[in-house]
């Protein structure tokens, strides 16, 4: 699974996610990636792209849950993404991660697995690339 989230210079947010699914999956199985609110979501407040155990992300509406925790719960981006990835997803036996950016340009890239291929950057600055937890 791959994904991207961005905040542009006008303050607009967007998210995109794309996947081939799971190796040896049953034909016709669809995971969270193409489902707005599950594996991909964007509002005026946050943009989110997920990767991981698709069925668990679907059952939790994980991407939208980040937005809801921020909008209704008053959580920060960091708090909301930590809660979803480090608490709610594992509670249902899932694993994976997400990338997210909020309206202020804050970024969060949490994951509960050993690693996540990830990179981020601010316009005009050196990009940061990471794979492992300790990166």
């Amino acid at each position: 699974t791959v994904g991207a989230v961005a905040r542009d210079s006008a303050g607009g947010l967007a998210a995109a996610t794309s996947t081939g699914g799971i190796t040896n999956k049953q034909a016709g199985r669809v995971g969270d990636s193409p489902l707005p609110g599950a594996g991909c979501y964007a509002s005026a407040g946050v943009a989110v792209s997920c990767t991981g155990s698709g069925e668990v992300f679907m059952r939790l509406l994980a991407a939208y849950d980040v937005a809801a925790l921020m909008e209704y719960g008053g959580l920060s981006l960091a708090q909301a993404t930590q809660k979803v990835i480090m608490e709610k997803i594992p509670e249902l036996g899932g694993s994976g991660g997400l990338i997210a950016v909020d309206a202020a340009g804050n970024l969060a890239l949490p994951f509960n697995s050993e690693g996540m291929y990830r990179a981020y950057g601010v316009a005009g600055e050196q990009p940061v690339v990471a794979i492992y937890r300790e990166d």
Partner: protein
Amino acid sequence: MAKATIAIHGGAGAIARASMNAGDEQRYRQALSLIVADAQSRLAAGQSALDVVTEAVRQLEECPLFNAGRGAVLTHQGQHELDACVMDGSTRAAGAVAGVTRVRNPVLAARAVLENSPHVLLIGEGAESFAEAQGLERVENHFFTTPQRRAQLERAIADNQMRLDHDAGSLSPDRKFG
């Protein structure tokens, strides 16, 4: 005013430093670096977040290291079924496709659904027909196959297991997903 910002991912999973050789790690890092740098340039040039995430994911789909587009994993039947979604935070407009097999870049099909369809999600043959009508590039299904993904499928069938992409390994060992 907050600066324009981009983040990308290429999947998560059991990716251990000890299990990846230096060459593979360098290939992943280089691919991620090039794509995020290009996205930064696009943001700096004033492109919209929607355009930038669409192009970043299209580039990730073109990279055989990652489980999307070329280099996607295989179903039990040895076929590729691809899914993608795009969403614009300003308008809550969304477009998505699922189970497409011949659209070269599923994210472009999702973007076309967002822009040129009254619907949000199209699947299977309907999504294929829509993408074709939109003039999107189509390929044979085997275009997406790499030797690494074929080997992953054979191992997964032998073990009678389904595996998330990075747990199934591409260039690296048998554990990663997304």
